[in-house]
């Protein structure tokens, strides 16, 4: 029962996968990808939590280091910043796709391409 945060992140990840498979709009699929990103970040940070641990910063209040694992936090710090780069590149690609085919539905795009070819 104490593993509840793992279940929360798994359920959000499942919702993201459901969104990617079920939605017919590429913009919605990009949003689902970002939801998966957030869920995985929560899971990785939760892997490093130690019970009654403190935030990994030396200060006068915490003279003895009883820290949580700082390595997953450093990795997630990298992942968040890369995530916004992916999001910006994906949105510009969507604008291009919409300009070329006039739609964001993968099925319609496929039909248009068959007609053109």
């Amino acid at each position, binding site marked *: 029962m104490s593993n509840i945060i793992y279940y929360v992140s798994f359920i959000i990840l499942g919702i993201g996968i459901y969104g990617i498979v079920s939605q017919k709009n590429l913009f919605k699929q990009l949003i689902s990808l970002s939801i998966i990103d957030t869920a995985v970040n929560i899971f990785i940070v939760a892997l490093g939590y130690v019970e009654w641990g403190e935030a990994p*910063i030396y200060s006068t209040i915490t003279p003895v280091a009883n820290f949580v694992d700082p390595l997953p936090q450093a990795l997630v710090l990298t992942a968040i910043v890369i995530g916004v780069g992916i999001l910006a590149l994906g949105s510009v690609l969507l604008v291009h796709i919409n300009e070329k085919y006039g739609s964001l539905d993968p099925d319609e795009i496929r039909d248009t391409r068959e007609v053109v070819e």
Partner: protein
Amino acid sequence: MRRVWAILVAGVFLYFLVGQFLPIIPTFGNVDLFARVAFDIINKSTTTNYNAVEFKKSKDLEDGSANVVTSIVVNYRSFDTLGEVSVLFCAAIGVGILASMLKSKKRIEFEEHKVLRISTGIVLPLILLFGAYIFIHGHLSPGGGFPGGTTIALGVLLLMLSNNEFKVTNVAKYVEQSAGAGYVVIGLMGMAIGGVFLMNFLPTGVVGNLFSAGVVPIVYTFIGFKVGAELSNVISDLREG
């Protein structure tokens, strides 16, 4: 039909995660840190046997930063951070090229509002100051170059929303290039002085002082300028088209 398939795929994924993956990871909160990281690094600040790290007292440590996450990101794994900054640079270049290739060249215009325009003049210096504070104090408090640079970019976004004539000029590109080059130059200086790329070659000082941790605040300042200029460019490219 599509939703049924989607629920099926997500359900299979959840079944494998909960049934197969959850039993092999430690339960929440019961991580044995000594099995994960070297004993020296974990136990640096206990009072017996090992060198105790005391705030504002101990000096000339291997890494002098009070924030352990910062010391991992910019000191121990600095090469990873250089790679991350290059990935962000590639993404910004991609956004710029793709946005300049768009056929419809219309610019996104906003309705000008007098209250927003005047209050932006008051608030914007404080936002930029806060961003600079975040990345200068990255080795003492939570924060660092990435959130500081993003805060500066958000200030630029506020300026864009309030003022239709505002454009991000080429100065942002020069700032970005010179900051990225400065990071590499610091790495090469470490190679020349200590023989290792991105080595911490400055004296580390007393833990908790502003001038401590050697090369870490300098690198984080470079990263802050670079990320701020880069993300401002991304927003500006998306707006101008």
